[in-house]
């Protein structure tokens, strides 16, 4: 693997992102495979008990970027990759809006699948973002899920 790879891009932003453009930016001469994860605002809260109309995401500026970079650096040690992009939105988002983009490119597909999955699992448990769900009646902070904590265990071996 050439030392100039992987190209890393991490951004916290209010604006939406364009999946095609971000995919295009992950093309490098050695790239054969790109795996993208896109997280969306669902129309229901976590336990599906009620509809939501919007959510607001806040984060800890500086620490968020640093934690995501730590995760990305770990993924680079584990897999040969050509590019990694993590974009996470903050602010007010509506149902079916895009929240997060994690794109990983590599020479061969399994590395891209694994690294993208790894980054998402750790982002879910380490990156300091908090969601508050809103509907007409009230707002409530989302609780962290035990299943997200457990998801990181598959990377321990």
């Amino acid at each position, binding site marked *: 693997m050439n030392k100039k790879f992987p190209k890393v891009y991490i951004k916290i932003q209010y604006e939406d992102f364009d999946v095609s453009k971000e995919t295009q930016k992950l093309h490098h001469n050695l790239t054969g495979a790109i795996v993208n994860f896109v*997280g969306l605002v669902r129309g229901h809260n976590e336990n599906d008990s009620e509809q939501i109309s919007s959510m607001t*995401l*806040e*984060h*800890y500026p*500086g*620490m968020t970027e*640093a*934690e995501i970079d730590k995760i990305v650096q770990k993924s680079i040690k584990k897999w040969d990759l050509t590019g990694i992009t993590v974009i*996470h939105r903050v602010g007010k988002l509506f149902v079916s809006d895009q*929240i*997060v983009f994690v794109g990983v490119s590599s020479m061969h597909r399994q590395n891209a699948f694994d690294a993208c999955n790894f980054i*998402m699992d750790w*982002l*879910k*448990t*380490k*990156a*300091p*973002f*908090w*969601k*508050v769900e809103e509907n007409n009646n009230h707002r409530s*902070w*989302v*609780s*962290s899920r035990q299943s997200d904590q457990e998801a990181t265990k598959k990377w321990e071996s």
Partner: protein
Amino acid sequence: MVIKYFSWIKEHIGKSEERIELPVNVSTIEELMLYLENLNDKYKLAFKKKDLIKIAINKSYSSIDDKINNNDEIAFFPPVTGG
């Protein structure tokens, strides 16, 4: 020192950030939390569920036993829910 609060901890305390001088006899996160809880009921409520409080010192995850200095940036927040 700067102390930052996020999510419902921020809302319980009623502010997102404050600057204080490191109090006498406070040298760890745990002692700082005790000091704050004794200020008023807002902090008591915010820090009630200790197992739900995550701590950062200078933007790195830290534990309740970690030492702190007057020029540190401390943060208290609930488990993260991004992604």
